């Protein structure tokens, strides 16, 4: 038994729904109680689908237990096939039905339906949503795909995109175009938009492009063994990875046409001087393994950030992410406990979070900007505009995504220049984030369980970078100690004299917190109980290198 408040992944049958809802012509008969129908709203509301997910829930009740739940299941199967006329059905149990052991697969097979029936065994009490997508797609492929003659032109399947995926809709379009440009024809894209009939043609492709290992790893491995199709291993997310992906495809196919890079803007945008202020911004990454891994590279190598921490919630990829942590010199956090993630972020005190919708909330509470880079998703992750994160256009989108939450470079300078202006309000934060300005954290924490959030608000105010500090000529000193937040708590802190306090106010707000802490730390070390203007400058001299 494990106490859970918020979850990164739903149960495995929600994964199966993501596959079914992504596809066409497939229906899912799910043995489940009525409350489980909530899952429909994930698709109709978050993803704004205009159709109900193709799922029939048996919605058995307590009075049915022990007597006719199996009949209810069979009736639901018959009705669903008659009403929706699918090319194939998948059948399975949710957590409750798993306990009553009606064996939906066995029942459906005895019914003599004239369409393929794929039975799913998704252990609800040990596995989660991503296992559900991977296993469901794998079972569909295993049942429906057959070895066959290869297409004449060099072709591939693009596998992994599902319903409710993070930017899957646009990633698929972007990568399909990239491949076409290289001279690779697209055989089948699946599960997204594929029919069961399409899956029978998977074998015609020369190789598989695996965009989302979370959802298509098992299927890709099976096809590698049984259909003799190599699979790509690079996820084309970010500039470097997209180029590596192109090289990988060239190695598999022998094709040499390189896609046009003229539309790629990230490298110049990142090199241009306004981006100087991005250097060394400390970021914390958390999400699904695939996105975290790719984004760590983008963050460090393509944006010039410093990776202050990283982790993933899907244990299936724990080994990869631990190795990644080593590579980046941080200890990887593998957990699906949201509170643990929050603690880790609080401790690492990054300047920005690259995370999921869950981390966006953590960021709101802690006053740390956050860019969403991974599922679980929210209605905001389905923008109306074309917005891939993969391929060259994806790289452009990522530059904007990662810069937007931060104060713009020029804006930072202006803030420093005008801070003496009586009309200027320090507390406003970046102008484009009125709604995201750090709130007083006490208010966001109505429970006493979270301790001392105050420092974090301070910390958030210093959207700082060495470059800006130097340029603004501000009274800022940089402590060698990278974890300064403990200094100003408690009553042992020295008292600020009025003059010193006034002087402190002259320091730009985004570095003021740091200056304050350094001074207090210095005062504590020297046994000074009253901080004067002199103490302030002595501390500056002390920490200046």
């Amino acid at each position, binding site marked *: *038994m*494990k*106490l*859970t*408040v*918020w*979850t990164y*992944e*739903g*149960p495995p*049958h*929600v994964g199966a729904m993501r596959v079914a809802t992504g596809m066409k012509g497939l229906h899912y008969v799910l043995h489940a*109680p*009525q*409350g*489980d*129908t*909530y*899952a*429909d*709203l*994930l698709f*109709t*509301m978050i993803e*704004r*689908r*205009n*159709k*109900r997910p193709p799922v*029939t*829930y*048996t*919605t058995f*009740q*307590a009075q049915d*237990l022990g007597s006719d739940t199996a009949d209810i299941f069979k009736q*639901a199967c018959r*009705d669903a096939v008659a*009403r929706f006329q699918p090319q194939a059905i998948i059948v399975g149990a*949710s*957590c*409750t039905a798993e*306990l*009553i052991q009606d064996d939906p697969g066995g029942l459906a097979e005895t019914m003599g339906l004239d369409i393929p029936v794929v039975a799913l065994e998704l*252990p*609800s*009490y*040990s596995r*989660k949503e991503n296992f559900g997508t991977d296993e469901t797609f794998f079972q569909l492929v295993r049942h429906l795909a057959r070895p066959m003659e290869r297409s004449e032109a060099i072709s591939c399947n693009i596998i992994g995109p599902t319903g409710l995926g993070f930017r899957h809709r646009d990633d698929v379009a972007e990568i399909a175009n990239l491949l076409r440009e290289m001279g690779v024809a697209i055989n089948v894209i699946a599960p997204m938009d594929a029919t069961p009939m399409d899956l029978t043609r998977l074998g015609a492709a020369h190789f598989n492009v695996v965009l989302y290992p979370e959802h298509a790893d098992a299927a890709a491995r099976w096809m590698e063994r049984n259909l003799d199709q190599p699979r790509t291993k690079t996820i084309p997310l970010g500039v470097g990875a997209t180029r590596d992906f192109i090289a990988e495809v060239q190695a598999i196919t022998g094709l040499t046409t390189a896609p046009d890079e003229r539309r790629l803007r990230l490298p110049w945008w990142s090199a241009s001087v306004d981006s100087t202020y991005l250097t060394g911004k400390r970021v914390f990454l958390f999400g699904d393994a695939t996105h975290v891994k790719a984004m760590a590279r983008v963050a460090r190598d393509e944006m010039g950030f410093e990776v202050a921490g990283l982790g993933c919630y899907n244990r299936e990829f724990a080994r990869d992410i631990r190795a990644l942590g080593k590579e980046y010199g941080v200890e990887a956090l593998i957990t699906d406990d949201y*509170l643990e993630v*929050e603690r880790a972020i609080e401790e690492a005190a990054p300047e920005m979070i690259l995370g999921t919708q*869950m981390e966006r*909330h*953590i960021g709101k*509470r802690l006053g740390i900007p956050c860019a969403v880079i991974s599922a679980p998703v929210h209605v905001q992750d389905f923008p109306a505009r074309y917005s891939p994160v993969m391929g060259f256009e994806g790289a452009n989108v990522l530059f904007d995504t990662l810069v937007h939450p931060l104060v713009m470079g020029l804006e930072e300078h202006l803030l420093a220049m005008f801070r003496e202006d009586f009309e200027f309000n320090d507390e406003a934060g970046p102008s484009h984030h009125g709604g995201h300005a750090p709130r007083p954290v006490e208010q966001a*924490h109505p*429970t*006493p*369980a*979270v301790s001392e959030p105050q420092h974090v608000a301070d910390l958030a105010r210093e959207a700082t970078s060495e470059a800006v500090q130097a340029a603004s000529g501000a009274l800022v000193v940089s402590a060698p100690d990278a974890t300064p937040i403990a200094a100003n708590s408690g009553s042992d802190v020295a008292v600020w004299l009025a003059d010193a306090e006034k002087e402190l106010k002259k320091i730009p707000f985004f570095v003021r917190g740091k200056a304050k802490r350094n001074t207090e730390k210095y005062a504590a070390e020297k046994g000074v109980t009253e901080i004067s203007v002199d103490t302030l400058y002595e501390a500056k001299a002390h920490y200046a290198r």
Partner: protein
Amino acid sequence: MNDLAPLPNRGCQDTPVLKERGQREVFCGLTGIIWLHRKMQDAFFLVVGSRTCAHLLQSAAGVMIFAEPRFGTAILEEKDLAGMADANEELDREVDRLLSRRPDIRQLFLVGSCPSEVIKLDLERAAQRLTGIHGPRVRVLNYSGSGIETTFTQGEDACLSAMVPSLPDTDAQNLVLVGSLPDVVEDQAISLLERLGISDVQVLPGRDAAHDPAVGPNTRYALLQPFLGDTAQALERRGATRIDAPFPFGDEGTTAWLAAIAALYGVSRETFEAVTAGPRARARKAIAVQAEKLRGKSIFFFPDSQLEVPLARFLTRECGMEAVEIGTPFLHKGLAAADLALIPEGPTISEGQDVDLQLDRCIAARPDITVCGLGLANPLEARGLTTKWAIELVFTPVHFYEQAGDLAGLFSRPLDRKRVLRLHPNASAQEAPA
């Protein structure tokens, strides 16, 4: 005592009910935790269930407002399913941990789910055992919010009825209002009653354990919500008597509800008029603005919150709408009688659900507005229908005079939006709806 609109020649009290038993598309009773935990400020709701239950709560809550809300799910794992003793020990351990981390908690609800019920985990015994350990500081109660036993708002009913046996005894002639409403609305109700001269008023649930009402043979109670049948029975078992009335929605509902109480307390007609005239006039005015847009429009209710019957009463009688079908997950004839009698004969009244058949009926009827769950709203909109999400009706303050206009506004807003948008959906951006 009251000057309500004339009664219909024939109401719906004798309309035969279409009983359906097919696929349901309704939340389970766990959902009630979302509003109950906000109401009871010292309570924690611990669902003993599966990852699905946790995911439902998260999805129904929509946003994660709090780092550590006062609810959570003890997710059963394979090892818990293997042996009973194990699961109980694990539960005790989780509760220990929780209560030591949250010293502010005074009431703990162990909430049963489908999985805990199917494996017959006895949460009643667990609650007794845990009360022995953590009482009297913390009161541990249990109820079922499972989808095999409860539908959506029935979770609140199960919760409140579980509280009734532990309420303090009294012989006083007190009045208990039953149902969890937003504080602001509750305060309005109490203030109206006070001005009528009725002062010993308490509410179930109280805002914290210390403010729970006392009950006894002289207690009268009035329901604030139509879905509280089990709670009503539990109160009757403690000797309390129900004050029968329509539910306090709109001008008519609120007036009739207050009048039923006032009659019992011998409030004079003059006092009643003096107290209610002002807010009534405001409510009428506010409703009138919305009724302009709603009059003559047809409405179809999918079963959801059990608020369907009183809302149909409000919308047909006070806003001039025409009900096509009033679907409700469960029709408590006794509690709904007063409202049913006021709804003019005509609509289909259905109980339970077979969602595919009901969708067929709805699409054939092409109502001007359809009240349904979040899973159905966009698919129906895509077919050209206008919808109102039912869940908003339980999350938004809609009871009593001052909210009457807002309540009507919830229904007129989707129609307004249809009117202001000069757009035609482009075929290419959307798949053909099915």
